[in-house]
């Protein structure tokens, strides 16, 4: 992957007319995007809008899609393995081999990225300590809380120091201090030129950490811009913008239905 070079003026990820069907259901209906190095993309949308499918295509889990996805100007279909070595991924669900200890798990992941055993051990221990679970480094994870597992997952997504980081609900289960730490980490990594693709339902966090927000609804990008640009439409919070663009303009309609059901 040494031949991959980056330039802040050329997109690091280009998505062109991306389409994906599951049977008769069209999940992505021609998504077009250009993402540049150092950007923190907040990727939001209602359930079933196509977020997970987009992420799965970007990390190479779904290969049968229509359109093009280029990373470093190379189609991911041509050499997905080389591209994967530059990506860090943290999945939405705490999918982890929990019969292993954090150190064993991180050793496994690090080696899949071709890292040296000693480097993995040193870096893993530093990261585990930084996340506050250094003392649990040699305990099996099947007794860990959701938050502790999430921390290990986060570490496994960045242990190889990737250039592109795809985070799918990374704050799930984390305590307040860890949330603050991850938010700061995202900003620092972006400053270092890393590209962050951040999927979440937590609007307030997306609003704060992202310098560009993409809103997908029914398989189409319906909003693309910084929070300030999106605010120009008149709505002052991302929640309101989200509700408006996803057809819930009267944001309280569902809540009113719930109240009616209770009365």
């Amino acid at each position, binding site marked *: 992957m040494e031949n991959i070079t980056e330039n802040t003026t050329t997109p690091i990820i280009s998505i062109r007319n991306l389409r994906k069907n*599951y049977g008769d259901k069209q999940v992505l209906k021609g998504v077009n995007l250009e993402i540049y190095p150092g950007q923190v993309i907040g990727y939001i949308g209602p359930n079933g809008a196509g977020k997970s499918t987009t992420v799965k295509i970007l990390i190479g889990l779904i290969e049968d899609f229509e359109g093009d996805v280029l990373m470093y100007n190379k189609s991911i279909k041509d050499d997905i393995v080389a591209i*994967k070595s530059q990506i860090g991924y943290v999945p939405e669900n705490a999918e982890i081999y929990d019969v292993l200890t954090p150190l064993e798990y991180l050793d*496994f992941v690090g*080696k899949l990225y071709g890292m040296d055993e000693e480097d993995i051990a040193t870096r893993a221990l530093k990261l585990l300590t930084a996340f506050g679970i250094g003392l649990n480094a040699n305990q*099996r994870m099947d007794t860990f809380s959701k938050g502790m597992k999430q921390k290990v997952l986060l570490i496994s997504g960045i242990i190889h120091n990737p250039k592109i980081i795809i985070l799918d609900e990374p704050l799930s289960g984390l305590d307040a201090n860890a949330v603050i730490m991850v938010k700061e980490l995202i900003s620092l990594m972006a400053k270092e030129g890393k590209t962050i693709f951040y999927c979440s339902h937590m609007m307030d966090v997306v609003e704060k950490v992202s310098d560009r927000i993409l809103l997908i609804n029914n398989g189409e990008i319906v909003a693309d811009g910084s929070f300030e640009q999106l605010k120009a439409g008149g709505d002052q919070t991302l929640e309101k913008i989200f509700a408006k663009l996803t057809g819930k303009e009267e944001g309280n309609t569902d809540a009113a239905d719930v109240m009616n059901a209770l009365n």
Partner: protein
Amino acid sequence: MLNKYIIKFILLFKGLYNSFGINPNQLEIILSTKLKMDDRRPNKYNQFKGGKKKETKNSSLLIMLFLAVMGLFITIFIAFFKQPFLGHTIYFSIFMIMLAFTLISDFTSVLIDTKDNYIILPRPVNDRTFSVARILHIGIHISKMAFAIAICGILYSFIFEGVISGLVFLLETLIATVLSIFLVNITYLVVLKITSPQKFKDFISYFQIAFSVLILVAYYILPRLISKSTIESIEIQNITLIGFVPSFWLASLHEVAINFKNATLSTNLYAALAVLAPIISLYLVVKVLAKGFNQKLASISSSGSDADNTATEIKAANTSFMNKIASLIAPDPIENAGFKISWLLSARYRDFKVKVYPSFAFVPVYFVYFGFIGKRGNLAESWNKLMEGNMYILLLYLSSFVLTTVLQHISMTDKYKAAWIYFTTPHQQPGKILGGMFKAVIVKYYLPFYIIITIFSITFWGFSVINDVILSFMIGIIYGLLVALFQVKGLPFSQPMVVQKGGKIFVSMLILSIPVGLGFLHNFAVKWEIVIWIAALIMSVLAWVSFNQYRKETWNTLELAD
């Protein structure tokens, strides 16, 4: 240690892997991690220890040891039955069944594990490395199991029957292994064809249950029902349709190898079939079945995305029966809730079903064991003697095993944390939930069993058994209530799996002595019909009082999970 040598052996072919585009370093780390996880995975053979989720180590070795002991037992067939075809046909029939059952019940979870999709596939691992690692992992697992079952047979053949016989035995083992894999593959495909991917995991649970019952039957009944002389008198080659049994082909191969000059044409043909069958089945697995198989497996794992979310629909008809019964016998709202939650969760939690359902087989198995085993004469004579006595009483009392097994497990599950709901809802008397739970257990598990046994008893012993049925049923309920009062200290599915403490084992023995003692008294008094009727009435009142006592359980007497 064993895993280390296996990995070393596999990595001897590094050059070959490189030439095929497989990354040997990644292959090594994936395989070693997977084998390490296999050793830590709870399995079919250690799950009945009832252990708290303590760290499992050397799980594979434990399975291998268990299978080796089973292998030792079945080696008896080749050691003692020297007639042509007989020993090898029986040995390899059992070998293939054991291997196939072990693979289905213990390795399916590995096969359909979707974690790899999120842990390995997003990393820079190419498809070939990933696929080869998966195939080798499955191959290593199967080889370990097959080797463990066959090791005693192999050693016996080499030591007592000579090198040629030993080598042929090795070949037979290899063929039997391939055919077992084929069998498993076909089973999976058939199941996936007739059921939805979501139900596939349920099927595996039922398979585990069937396996437990099979082991139970094999352990208690077969060795005592079938004598050596009965088996020796079988001329296996003359049995109709024996030519369709793969293990007979293997026995034929053995016959041809050690007794070539006397082999008949049909024996030669079956031996040829033994050699051709694995080749044909491998071809079918790789070229025809694998594609559909992988697609089906993918469909099991593709839930939870934008794609499907096809929830398991519960038909109203499935729950309307339960609703009717619940409102009839548990009208109190809290008791009703306890009844329904116990009824529904016991049907849907796999860990509960796997632990409890095999006990349903205990009753008929023990009945056959006590009724027939050790009796002189043939089966018909034993049956006649059985009819003359009061053996139905034993059958009736054995049914309480079902009740106690269900009760001992109804408060336990891996998903016990969901029980927070009990503790946040405003009810003073958890005994009402327990009462509902107890009623659900009686109606759902004890009563159907009892009805079947009653019909069986009335059919063979006549209507005079009715008072015995009522008395034993009430004693069963009292026994169940004592178990519930002293041993089940948790609300339905609210506690983690725990090891029974020494004190509790003593208590359970003490409680068990009550139905045993009363059962003996019952057996003694059976000829005085009026005594049995009076006893039945007394026990009914006692059962009612005990139930009301149980219904008054308070939060203080309950054991709460962390």
